[in-house]
């Protein structure tokens, strides 16, 4: 699987390897740019390939420091996750953060409403595995939405 994914990513997508990190953590712009990349691949390669690449940690374009994309359908089911593959296939519509915020529901609302925007919530940092404040840029993508977040210190 991992080999296929790698092959697919290199041979078919040909995504540019991001430039060397300027900071320890990803910025908002970088997050938005990553969303745009996912959108591009989605348009170009379709859903399945995009989901696979997003979930594959080997695809560097989608895994940069603490930045990673996540894709859910409008029912709240996780279809692709750049940091936590255990979530793929799980419906997280009712997922709440420590403040009681329904994270996925907000994102669905945002996607179905304005189509994109920022959502603030708490989420475990994949690097530290600690729950931190996070701001994610979310955009509608066909029947799905895609988001990339930054951890706010």
């Amino acid at each position, binding site marked *: 699987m991992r080999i296929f994914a790698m092959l697919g990513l290199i041979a078919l997508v040909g995504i540019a390897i991001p430039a060397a990190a300027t900071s320890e953590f990803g910025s908002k712009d970088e997050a938005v740019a990553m969303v745009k990349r996912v959108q591009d691949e989605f348009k170009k390669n379709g859903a399945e390939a995009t989901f696979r690449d997003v979930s594959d940690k080997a695809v560097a374009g989608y895994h940069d420091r603490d930045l990673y994309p996540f894709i859910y359908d409008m029912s709240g089911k996780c279809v692709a996750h750049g940091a936590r*593959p*255990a*979530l793929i296939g*799980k*419906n997280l519509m*009712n*997922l*709440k953060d420590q403040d009681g915020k329904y994270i996925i529901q907000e994102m669905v609302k945002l996607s179905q409403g304005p189509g994109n925007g920022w959502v603030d919530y708490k*989420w*475990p940092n994949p690097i530290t595995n600690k729950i931190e404040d996070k701001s994610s840029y979310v955009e509608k993508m066909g029947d799905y939405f895609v988001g990339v977040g930054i951890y706010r210190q």
Partner: protein
Amino acid sequence: MEDAVAPRAAKAKAMARLRSVFGILGHLSIRIKASAASAVLLACLLALGTNAYLTSGRSAGGLRMLSHQLEPKLQEVSRLSEAIVATHMKIFRYVSWASNGVNEKLMSQLYSDIISDLDSLSARIESLNTRDDLSAEERSRVQMLLAEWKLCKSQAKDTLDVGQSDPAMATMMLGQTDDSFKAVDADFQSMANDIKTAATNVQSNLYTAAERNQKIIIAGTALGFLVSAFVFFMIGTMIVGPIKKVTDIMRQLSAGKTDIEIRMRDRGDEIGQMVEAIDVFRKTMIDMHAMEQTTHQAEQHRAAERRAEMRALADEFEKSVQQIAEDLAAAVTVMHKNAEVMSLIAADTRSHSQSISGTVVTTQANVDSVAGAADELARSIEDLASQTQNARELTNKTVEQSESARLNVKQLLEAVGQIVPITGLIQAIAQQTNLLALNATIEAARAGASGKGFAVVAAEVKTLAAQTASATEEINRKIAAVHASCDSVVKIIEQVVGAIGAIGAGNAEMAAAVSQQAASTQEISRNAQQAADTSRSVARNIVELDTKARENDEASGQALEGAGRLLDQAAMLQQQVASFLRHVRAA
């Protein structure tokens, strides 16, 4: 004013209605009235019994529902709720273990434990849905619960799955799992609460029903008692009261009081019929009484008529009897006088005959002296002649007196003869009186009790008539005796007169002989002897006459006595007739 009048009118109206109800009740027969009390009691019993049956049926239903439906359902729901909470806790434990790196063997045990819990919970919730004792609301709630549980279960599984590789994320996911478990649990709790509420409702319904039933039983019993007592009282007043009245009416009727008011005739029951019958009886009594009075008046009238008749008869009888009695009295008086006269005459005759007897003795002595002194005869011829003359005069006188006595006796005989028809008349009256008395007795017998006194008087009259008849018979007998005595006196007087006549002739011859037979003293002596014999015979006759005269005297005395008794009896008759008439008039 109006405010005062209105309630009074309403009250009067209510009273009238009550009375009409009572009237209708009064028309019911006694049998219906008598069975009314038991019917009311029976109705009360029936109502109470029905109520008890229905209530106990409801109670049984409620209890059945409690014990067979609500309680097991509640138990199952409570157990489910507890099991869900326990599973929830296990999921927490699992995530906690995953976060803290508990060894994989324990983790996988707990994992499979939780999975089997979830599956068994699913089965139990499913089986809850198949229960047939769910209400529609509960069923829809169970449907909803099933949906919720499905989500809850999937979230739980997701959390477990994520927890295997990503404990941090699993911890994140505990929030939603918690929510869904809480929601399911809350649903179960509310369902349990609903069932509890239903059970409480059933219980409180049972309690209320029991309380109400108690009240109904008390009220029903009280009502039954009151209504029965009322009906009993009503029957008492509507049967016993009227029966007492009817009894009173009957008692009064039996006492002969017919002018009483007959009430309760318009009653439709047996008492009304009874009163109707009593009224008929009373009318019959009145009719009978009137008839009796009419009969009594007629009888009185008839009695008065009879009395008047009797009085008239008595008057007539009095007249005739008085006349007869008066006649009788007069006749008896006359008879009495005659008897007195006769008695006097008889006494006179006796004294005369005694004097004759003395004279005769003297004559005999003279004759004896003639015979004894035959020789002195011549000498005393003249003396003798004068003496003879004296004797002749005496004889004549005697003859006259005898004649007079005879005439008197004859007169007495006639007087006695006159009495005979009077006694015949008295006898006839006595017979008639007897007949009258007999008639009076018969009438008295026909008159019954009222003629009893009259019958006594009639019997007295009858006795009187018999006495009168016997008295008259006695008088007749006495008269016959007097008659016979008189006849013999007359005969003797006639003999005396004859003898005196013979003496007279002898005296005449002696006078002739006195002048002629001076010579023949023997002759004279013989004649004198003869004369002496004759004078002895005369003396004997005179003695006989004397005896007869005494007898005559006695007879006339007896006649006098008889006449006196007759007089007394006539007076008594008059008295008794008067008393009889008094009785008759008084009757």
